[in-house]
């Protein structure tokens, strides 16, 4: 088996893994299963990033998503104790309608993907280095970089204030 074929097989396994994770994230009614599924799917997506040539982003994916977001969700689950609450039955019409709508959208996007002529840029640079990313972050995307910190600040303050961890608790 050539490297290429192995890579190919690994790719499809990755696909299977990702979608299995996604399915677990979406369908079961146990919220903890969902979180695990999400972690799985996110890790799979990180794998895609590897295939797409960016080790850096794959790493970030694992760090931010699997590391931070999933943990946050688990915390929320623990705080809201949903496991103690009754699990409602599935409403079939709702699921069916949701499935139809999602499928239509999926089909439409498929159509878009295959009907569009994707043309690569005329000149393509091959500079995948992290240095370039860092450089760009501090030049062209400087503003965004600043703003995203503000976003995080707002998120933190907002989460604290909204969730009720105000001075009441601290004082």
């Amino acid at each position, binding site marked *: 088996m050539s490297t290429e074929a192995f890579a190919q097989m690994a790719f499809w396994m990755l696909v299977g893994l990702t979608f299995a994770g996604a399915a677990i994230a979406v369908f079961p009614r146990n919220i903890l299963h969902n979180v695990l599924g999400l972690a799985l799917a996110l890790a799979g997506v990180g794998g895609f990033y590897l295939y797409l040539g960016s080790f850096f982003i794959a790493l970030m994916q694992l760090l931010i998503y699997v590391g931070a977001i999933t943990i946050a969700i688990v915390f929320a689950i623990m705080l809201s104790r949903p496991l103690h609450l009754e699990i409602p039955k599935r409403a079939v019409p709702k699921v069916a309608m949701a499935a139809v709508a999602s499928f239509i959208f999926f089909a439409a996007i498929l159509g878009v993907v295959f009907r569009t002529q994707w043309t690569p840029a005329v000149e393509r640079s*091959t500079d995948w280095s992290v240095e370039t990313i860092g450089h760009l972050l501090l030049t062209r995307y400087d503003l965004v970089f600043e703003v995203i910190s503000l976003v995080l600040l707002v998120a933190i303050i907002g989460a604290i204030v909204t969730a009720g961890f105000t001075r009441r608790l601290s004082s």
Partner: protein
Amino acid sequence: MNSLGTYLVIAAALFSLGLLGVLQRRNLIGMLIAVELMLNGANINFMAFNRFLAPEPAVGQIITLFVMGLAAAEAAIGLSIILVLFRRVHSINVERAQQLKG
């Protein structure tokens, strides 16, 4: 390696799966999880375009990075809002939230 189309289809499928989750989950946290899937779908798109079409490979990566950051912030805010709701109505079932209508 695999063509652009493959990645785009995977992205679309992931996005649609997330959409399905948003539409049918009753658990608000479940909905939030589904939204994360949708964002990941978009991210795969960016990375794929970055890999196959874009003139500068750095741009797509940077965008993906920022979207991840935003997703983190979003999750934090969303979870805090869900907690507010939980405190008041002791449920995170979205169907409990239908007082306002008409």
